[in-house]
C-alpha cells in the first residue's frame, strides 16, 4: 500500500448502505477493483458494512452532515429501511441513490403488483416444502419467555429512496457498471460532480441503450413476437426488429448494451430514458408505433403475443411508474 494520501486533498468521508437490495450494488462498487485502493487512499470509508468493519462507528453518533457522500442502494421495503434512509439523509451532505432498486424500486418492486397477505401466504404458508400447520407468520413483535422480540413492519408498497427522503443524485443500473461508478466516485473525490439536482442521474448516458447497441437497425416493422428461448436471433440485427421484446429504446444507456452482447434483449435496468417517467407506457408508445399491422385483427394478434406486459415493461421501474402497481381491483391477469 502506498503512503498517506496527498496532503493537499482533504480526505472525503464516504458511506455505502443497502436497503431492500440484493448486494449486487455493493459488489459492483467492489468491481472498481484496483481503484478500491485509490478510494480508501483518498477517502475515509465511514460506512460500508459489506466489506469493511474498520471505522464502523455509531452513525447515529455522527454529527449531522458528517458523511460527505453516502450511497444508498436497495428499495425501501419496511419501516426499518425507512428509518435508516432518514438517518443517513440527516448525516450526509450528499445522498446518492445507487442502483435500480433505490431509484425505481427494481425487481423487488414487482411485489407491489399484489397485496401483502398473498405474498406472506406464498412464502410462509403455501408452498411444497413448508411445514407450518399453525399458519405462523412473522410478526413485528413476539413474546418470548425472556421478553419481546421485534421485527420491522413490512410495507404494502415498495418505495423508492426518493419517496421517503430527498435524493441529490442517482446512479442507475442493476447493477451500475463499475467504470461508470468509478467515474462518479472520482468526480466526487475531485469535486467534479455536476450541480446537485433533485435526483439528477449520473454515471450513465443521456442516450438510449439502442444508441450504444452494436446491432443494426433495418427499420422494418415487427411482424411477430418471439420469446428468447423460442428462436435463435440473427446476429448483428436489432433484436426488437426481429421480434424479441427489447426495452432498449425506452431505456437509458450506460450499461454498454451488455445484454445485447449476450444476444439477449434489454430488460430496462437503467430505467426510463430522456424525460420519460413511466418507462412501461413510454415503451408501449414506441412498440405500438412499429408493429406491422394495418388491421385491428392483426394488431390484436400481435399484441396478444406479448406475454406479461407489466413484468416486461416495468421489470425494474414499477415503483417510479405513474401507477406504481398497487393492485386496485380486478385479477390483473396479463
Amino acid at each position: 500500500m502506498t503512503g498517506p494520501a496527498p496532503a493537499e486533498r482533504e480526505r472525503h468521508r464516504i458511506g455505502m448502505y443497502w436497503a431492500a437490495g440484493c448486494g449486487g450494488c455493493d459488489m459492483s462498487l467492489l468491481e472498481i477493483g484496483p481503484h478500491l485502493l485509490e478510494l480508501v487512499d483518498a477517502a475515509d470509508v465511514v460506512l460500508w458494512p459489506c466489506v469493511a468493519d474498520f471505522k464502523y462507528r455509531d452513525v447515529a453518533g455522527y454529527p449531522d452532515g458528517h458523511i460527505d457522500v453516502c450511497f444508498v442502494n436497495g428499495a425501501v421495503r419496511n419501516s426499518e429501511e425507512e428509518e435508516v434512509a432518514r438517518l443517513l439523509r440527516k448525516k450526509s451532505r450528499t445522498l446518492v441513490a445507487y442502483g435500480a432498486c433505490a431509484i425505481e424500486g427494481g425487481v423487488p418492486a414487482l411485489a407491489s403488483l399484489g397485496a401483502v397477505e398473498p405474498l406472506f401466504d406464498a412464502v410462509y404458508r403455501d408452498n411444497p416444502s413448508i411445514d407450518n400447520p399453525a399458519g405462523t407468520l412473522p410478526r413485528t413483535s413476539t413474546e418470548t419467555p425472556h421478553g419481546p422480540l421485534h421485527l420491522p413492519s413490512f410495507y404494502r408498497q415498495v418505495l423508492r429512496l426518493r419517496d421517503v427522503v430527498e435524493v441529490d443524485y442517482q446512479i442507475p443500473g442493476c447493477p451500475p457498471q463499475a467504470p461508470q461508478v468509478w467515474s462518479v466516485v472520482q468526480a466526487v473525490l475531485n469535486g467534479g460532480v455536476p450541480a446537485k439536482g433533485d435526483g439528477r442521474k449520473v454515471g450513465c448516458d443521456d442516450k438510449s441503450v439502442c444508441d450504444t447497441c452494436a446491432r443494426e437497425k433495418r427499420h422494418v416493422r415487427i411482424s411477430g413476437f418471439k420469446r428468447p428461448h423460442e428462436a435463435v436471433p440473427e446476429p448483428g440485427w436489432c433484436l426488437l426488429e426481429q421480434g424479441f421484446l427489447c426495452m432498449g429504446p425506452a431505456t437509458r444507456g450506460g450499461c454498454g448494451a451488455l445484454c445485447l452482447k449476450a444476444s439477449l434483449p434489454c430488460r430496462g435496468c437503467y430505467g426510463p430514458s430522456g424525460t420519460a417517467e413511466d418507462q412501461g407506457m413510454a415503451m408501449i408508445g414506441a412498440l405500438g408505433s412499429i408493429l406491422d399491422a394495418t388491421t385491428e385483427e392483426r394488431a390484436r394478434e400481435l399484441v396478444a403475443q406479448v406475454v406479461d406486459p407489466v413484468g416486461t415493461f416495468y421489470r425494474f421501474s414499477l415503483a417510479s411508474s405513474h401507477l406504481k402497481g398497487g393492485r386496485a381491483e380486478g385479477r390483473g391477469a396479463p
Partner: protein
Amino acid sequence: MAEAMPHAALTKDAPVAAAWEPRIVAFLCYWCSYTGADAAGTARLKYPPNVDVIRVMCSGRIDPELVTAALAKGADGVMVCGCHIGDCHYIAGNHKTMARMPLVARALAQLGIAPGRFVHEWVSAAEGDKFAALVDRVTRQVRRLGPLDWPRRMRERGVPGGRGLSPWSEP
C-alpha cells in the same frame, strides 16, 4: 406525487363534491371523434356530464403516458377515441393507436385497474349518436366500479412516503 392529491382537498374544501361523481378524461382526435362529439351536440343528443374532452390533432398523438398520468392524478376512467381504421386524416396515425391501446389495456389490467375504466373506441365525424351512447355506457360502468382515487390509494400505501405509512397489518 404530493401534488396529485386533489381529492383530499376536494372532500376537505368542497363539501358539495363529497357526493362522488365519476371523473372521466377523454382524449379525442380532432378530425373524426371530436367532430363526432360536436355532431352529438348539433343533434342535441343528451349524455352524462362526467366525461371531459381533451382535443388532440390525431389519436396517434395520445401518448400512453397520458393515460396513466390521468389515472394517477385521480381520473376514475379514461377514454381514447380516434378515426376508424382507414379514415385517418393523417393516413395511419390511428394504426399506432390501434396497436398501442390494447397494450395499454392489458398493462392496466395487470396493474389492477378494472378493464371498464379504460375504453378505446373509434368514433367518426358522423357518429354523434355513437359518441353519446359511448359516453353514457362508460359513465355508467365507471359509476358501477366506484371511485378509483389513485392518489388516496397511494397515500394509504405510503407514496409519497414519509411517516404515517400504513404498514402491513398482521393477522
